[in-house]
């Protein structure tokens, strides 16, 4: 109970895609492992990404045309598959970001009614 900060949360259903898109926007083309690491780091290591779930998510995004992939080489010269945002992916990201902001704003109002009044 006391070690609450160390207890990692699972990625919420449906938000993984948004995180992937955002990561790719911020970092440019990146391989699967890099994306997973980046998501962990960004969350301050609070999120536990099961790396295995990342790949079907990447495949789904690719099938939907939001990202594209090609084989390339990593910094230490290892062959890896790199993903990057497409034009449609960028649009989708903007849209989802806006929606997410709205949702969180609404939720925030619900969750902090006292502050609002004071």
């Amino acid at each position: 109970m006391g070690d609450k900060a160390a207890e990692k949360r699972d990625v919420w259903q449906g938000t993984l895609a948004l995180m992937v898109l955002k990561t790719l926007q911020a970092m440019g083309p990146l391989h699967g492992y890099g994306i997973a690491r980046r998501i962990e780091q960004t969350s301050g290591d609070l999120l536990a990404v099961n790396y295995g779930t990342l790949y079907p998510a990447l495949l789904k995004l690719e099938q939907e045309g939001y990202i594209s992939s090609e084989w390339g080489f990593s910094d230490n010269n290892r062959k890896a598959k790199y993903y990057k945002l497409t034009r449609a992916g960028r649009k989708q990201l903007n849209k989802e970001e806006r929606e997410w902001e709205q949702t969180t704003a609404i939720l925030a109002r619900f969750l902090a009614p006292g502050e609002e009044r004071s």
Partner: protein
Amino acid sequence: MRRLRAWFLRFAGLFLRAPRERELADELESHLQLHIEDNLRRGMSPAQARREAIMKLGGVEQTKENYRERRGLPILETTFEDCRHALRLLRKNPGFTLVAALTLALGIGGNTAVFSVMNSVLLRNLPLPHPEQLMFLRLPNDQPPGASNTGDGDTSFSDPVFEQLRKEHAAFSDLMAYVPLAIGKVAVRVGEDPEEAEADMVSGNFFSGLGTAFARGRGFTLEDETAHAPLAVLSYSYWTGRFARNPAVLGQTIYVKGLPFTVIGVTAQGFYGVEPGASTDFWIPLQNRPELNAWGNPASLNTLYGTPTWWCLRLIGRLAPEVTAAEALRNLDPLFQRAALIGLGTPDPKNRKPVLELSPAKGIQGLRDQYEQPIEILMAMVGLVLVIACANVAMLLVARNSARQREFTMRVALGAGPGRLLRQLLAESLLLVTVGAGLGWMFAISASRALAAWSSLEVPFSLDSNVLLFTLAISFACAVVFGLAPLRSAVSVQAGSVVKSSNAAAQRTKRSSWAGKFVVAVQMALCLILLVGAGLLVRSLRNYETLPLGLRTDGLLVFGTSPLTTHSDDEKARFYHILLDRLRVVPGVESATLLENRLGSGWSNNNVFAIDGVVPTGDFADIGMRANDVGPDYLHTLGIPILEGRDILDSDSRTAPKVVVVNETFVKRFFSKSDPLGHSAGGVKPDSSFTIVGVAADSKYTGVDEKPRPMLYFPFWQRSFVSDMQVELHTTGNPESLISSVRAVLHDLDPNLPMQKPMTQRAQFDVSFSQPRLFARLSMFFGLLAVLLVATGLYGTLAYRVSRRTSEIGVRMALGAQRIAVLWMVLRESLLISVAGVAAGVPLAIAGAQLMRSMLFGVMPGDSRSFLEALLGVTLVALIASAIPARRAASVDPIVALRYE
């Protein structure tokens, strides 16, 4: 849109799996390597680094599996797998597959073929735009009294009726008239060779009103009709068969009865005229020349196209848009009633009024009435065959699947749910049915051709979309039945019973064997029905074949011919006189004669003649008489016994005193007390009466199944007009070997003269019962098929039971059971099944036979011999089918059997 794209890509993911798999493996491998390097940098040991990386990934194979699910379409993939698995199973059991697929092919193919006949005769619309708007005009109670007519009394209209009705566009947007140029075929010459073809004269709007499409050239116009233009339109099939689709046919001349006609068009493929019972070869505009009279009828002043009282035109109309048949009829009837009287003077109000009727142009007119019930009965019979076939295949599947219990239990133990098992079984049955239906379709193609040939119906039997839909529907029904039948045994499997011995299975099959026995009993019952039906029809056919005709058919050759260039009756009589003289001296000809209506062709003259100047009164059924115009030596040539007086002779010429020969029934009906010789028959006035000079024995006229009717034979020379005649030759050798020398005689007389439908008289009578023959043969075929299927079904069931009970039998024998007792045990089982089947089948067969009453000839529906034979047949089948399993059971070696476990 995005989702669609994703689905498409997932579908694409079903293919090219190997490279995609490699890529996935590479990607995961590179992921692990990157992770391991990171971990190493953090100071882990190599083994630890790898372990941590794999754990973090959540397992390589698990990840791959999740990935695959997203990549393809799992449902489709498992379906593919099911199909592949099913295919493998079917290949592994070629014997089973062959038997099951062939059984299904016979069932489905037979049904498809019979349905294709039913479709063309009863259901199909004409291949024209909006066929539902097309209506035939009919006269259910014939033409008004006083009208002269040709063709069938209920289909022929007069020219004034046509002209009046075609003006009324509120009912029909177009009303078309057509009439054949001959009964059967008309003489045509293209180039040098005379031949025959079926031809109609039609109104100018015939093609435009029907909406016929043209492969070449054009159709007729109203001007062509009024000018009686010498133009012709060919049908696509005639163009193909006679002109090899030569495009240069347009503008060519064809000679119809020696008169030139210019070809101006070819109809589109698939159009055979509006009466597809006979396919029309070409069409010409309505003509008013006596040579081209309707139906080839001899023309006189009041029997020529354009004469108001000459009822010869068949009519077909296209309903105006949005008008129903009933509305159209209401509209037309007053017009029709007025027009019908044109030329007939003031009608006697007591006379019956003609009735106009509209009948949808669907199926084949005429044939529809004649064939509707028989075809439905055939359909029912072949349906029963399909049921038997399906039951057999279902039993085969059940037996095979109970041998697969272990496989199913294994699958259940590995986590397959009932739904998954059902899907796999459905895939197997679907595959089997697909193979069966494919074979069946091929079988149906040739079978329906054979049916068309046997039925001597000139019907284009084509397997159209209706038939295809029908086949798919029955196949699908089969597949579902087969999928569901074995399901019970499959899902009742408990995962725990995997390795239990076959004893447990033997216990369970006790229940399912009851179902098997029930199915076989039902098959037996159906088989009995089919055998009774086949027996009755075959017996009817035997009656047709062996019924005495009252004449000698051996050595008789018959053919038709009519002079092309002679017009007057005298000229025509002279032509036939010369023809007879020439034919009599042909080597091999014993005697020759002429007759107007060919025997056994269905045609006859029906009338009521005056006897001694007095027209008998009464019902037509009692006083109706039949007549034929015949040549000299008629009774002698045909071998009809002369009971009294003499035959028609050469001396009964055109100028000699008029004479007539009557038959026995005529004498019985009208001269029961006195001697008929010397009395007269014919017209009311003395100058139109004929003196009776002979009495002939009764003989068959229109066909084999007619009842004796009063009959008069008139010398054709002495009739007021001379008809087109048929020639009968009595030959000493094989009649057909004379055809070429007869043809030479005809050619000598006129190179344009065709020999119409030469055949032996026996063959002509055979044609008169070709329909019963077809049905008898088919029902016999279905009966044999049913017997074969039931025998294999029963054999399979018993053999399976015996093999299951081998150890039980071994125990019984070890305990002292005699071989004979074991034999009886198996036979008793099969006999019990048969008795149950027969007990259920007999009442059903009695009911079924009643439905067939109209198809029977000389046999009662309750014919005890047919029933006994069917019973005997079923019993025999049961015994033969059980003999082998019974012997196998009796020859079980107790020692081997006990080790069998």
